[in-house]
C-alpha cells in the first residue's frame, strides 16, 4: 500500500511536489512607471496585508523581519511566487502558491516597500542567454540543492529546495540575486548579469517536456523511482504472466 501511494505520488510527478502547480503570471515590473494613484494603492495594500508583521514602515516585528533594504527583487519574488503574504508565521520559509495579488498590485507593493529605503537588489530583467554555459553554471551552483534535473530536493530540518519548473525567468533571476530563505545569494561579483541570463535560459529549458525524450519522466526523481517501477512491473506483469502461464487452461 505504501508502495502504491508512493507510486501515485511519483505518478503525479513534479506537479505533486510543487503546491499550486499552475504557473503564476509573469509580474510586470514597474519600478519607475507607476501612476500617482498606484502609490496610494500600494500603501493601502501594505497596511492591510503586510504591516501587521513587517511594521508600518517596514521596520519589522517579532512576527516578521524588517523589509528595509531587502530590495525590489525580493519583494517581487515573495509576492509573485505566492510565498507572501504568509498564511501563518512558520519557522521555515513559506512555500510557493498562487499569488494573492494581481501584477499591478504587486508592482504597487514593490514601490511601497522600496520607498522605505535601504536600497537592495532591483528587479532583474533577464534576457536570452547561452544554453550551454547555463547548463554548466546550473550544475555548479544550483544542482546541489535543486537537483540536476530541477526537480528540487530535501534539505535538513524539513526544509526543501523547491522544484524549478514553475519559476518564471524573472523569478529565477530574483532568487539568484536575493537568495530567499536558506538559499545562498549570488550577487554580481559571483554571477554576472550575463551568467544570470544563461542560467534563466537553461532553467526555462529544463521545464520543457522535450527534454524527457525517453518517455514518462517519473518526476525526474532518479534511480529509486525507476527501481519502484521495475519492481511493480516485474511483480505485476512478469510474475503475473508466469502465474497464468504455469497453469493449465480452465484450471
Amino acid at each position, binding site marked *: 500500500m505504501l508502495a502504491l501511494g508512493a507510486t501515485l505520488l511519483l505518478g503525479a510527478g513534479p506537479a505533486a511536489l510543487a503546491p499550486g502547480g499552475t504557473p503564476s503570471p509573469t509580474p510586470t515590473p514597474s519600478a519607475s512607471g507607476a501612476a500617482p494613484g498606484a502609490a496610494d494603492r500600494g500603501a493601502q495594500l501594505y497596511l492591510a496585508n503586510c504591516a501587521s508583521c513587517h511594521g508600518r514602515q517596514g521596520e519589522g516585528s517579532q512576527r516578521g523581519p524588517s523589509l528595509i533594504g531587502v530590495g525590489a527583487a525580493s519583494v517581487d519574488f515573495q509576492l509573485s511566487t505566492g510565498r507572501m503574504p504568509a498564511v501563518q508565521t512558520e519557522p521555515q520559509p513559506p512555500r510557493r502558491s498562487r499569488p494573492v495579488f494581481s501584477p499591478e498590485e504587486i508592482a504597487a507593493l514593490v514601490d511601497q516597500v522600496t520607498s522605505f529605503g535601504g536600497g537592495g537588489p532591483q528587479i532583474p530583467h533577464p534576457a536570452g542567454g547561452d544554453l550551454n554555459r547555463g547548463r554548466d553554471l546550473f550544475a555548479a551552483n544550483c544542482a546541489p540543492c535543486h537537483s540536476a534535473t530541477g526537480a528540487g530536493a530535501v534539505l*535538513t530540518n524539513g526544509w526543501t529546495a523547491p522544484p524549478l519548473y514553475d519559476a518564471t525567468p524573472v523569478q529565477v533571476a530574483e532568487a539568484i540575486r536575493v537568495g530567499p530563505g536558506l538559499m545562498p545569494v549570488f550577487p554580481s*561579483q559571483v554571477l554576472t548579469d550575463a551568467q544570470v541570463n544563461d542560467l534563466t535560459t537553461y532553467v526555462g529549458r529544463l521545464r520543457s517536456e522535450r527534454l524527457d525524450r525517453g518517455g514518462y519522466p517519473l518526476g525526474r526523481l532518479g534511480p529509486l523511482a525507476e527501481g519502484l517501477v521495475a519492481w511493480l512491473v516485474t511483480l505485476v506483469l512478469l510474475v503475473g504472466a508466469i502465474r497464468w502461464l504455469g497453469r493449465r487452461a480452465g484450471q
Partner: protein
Amino acid sequence: MSARRPPAAERAAGRRIVTAFLASAAGAVGFAVVYALNAGPQWEGVSLAVAFAGLAVGLAQWGRHLVPVGGYVEEHEGFTPPPDEQAMTAAVLTAPDSPIRRRGLLAALGLAVTAIGIAVLFPLRSLLPWNRLRPAVAFSRTPWGAGVRLVDQQGRPLRPEDVPAGTLVGVFPEGSVDSGDAPAFAVRLEPQRFTRPPSGGHVGGLVVWSMLCTHAGCPVRLYLKGTGRVLCPCHQSSFDLLADAHPIAGPAARPLPGLPIEVGPDGFLRATGGFTGPPGAGFWRRQ
C-alpha cells in the same frame, strides 16, 4: 491429463492465436515504419512491444489450449551411485601406476603450479603505474600548497571581495581545476559567531574548507545560508561551519579539512599550505 476441449473451443483458441500472431506481425511492420519515419523512442518501443506481446499471447494460448499440460511423470535416478561403482572408479584413479600415488612428485608439481599461480599475479601490479606515489601518500597530497592561488571554476583568480557573505563559492588550485581531491569552497562568516576557530584560519571571516565529505567523498555543496551549515547530498552528513566544519548529523565522523589562506601581494587569495588533513573519505594510513 487434460481433458480434450470440444472442437468449438479449439477453433476459438485457434482464431485467437492467429489473431495474436497477425497483431505481432503488424507490430513488427509498425516498428520498421516508425523507425524509417524517425518517429521517436515512444513509438519504437510501443511497436516492438506489440510485436513481442502478440508473439507471447499467441504462443501462450497455443501452449495452454492446444497441447497437453501436466499429467506426465519422469523417473529420477538419484545421484548416489552403488558402492561398487564408486569403488571401481576409485580403483581406476588409484591404480598402482596412477600419478596420484606418487606423493613426492605430486608435491613438487603442486609447488610449481603454486609458484606459477603467484608469479602470474605480479603483472597485476602494473594496473597502478610504477612511477606513481604510494597510494596512501598520493591520497594525502593535493595540488594545494603555499602560494597556490585560489581560482573559481572558470579559472579566474579570486579576490576577497569575490566571496560576499551569504554565498558559497567553489574554489580550486590555480592550474588544477579538474583535480579530484582539490575542490574546496569559500564562505564568508561573521568571526564573532565562531564557536570553534577554523583550523585553516580566516581572512576577515573568509574561510576555505575542502569540499569533499569526510564520509564517502561526495562534494558537500548544499549551503544553508544563515544556519552556517553545509549538507552532503549523498548521505546527508551535515557540517557546522561555525564550529570548524565539524559534523553535527549524519554518518560523517571527521570535520572537513580547512585550507589556510592569505591575501597575496597581487591582491588575490592564495593558500599558505595544503589542507589541514587529507581531504575526502578516510583510509587506513590517514593521519
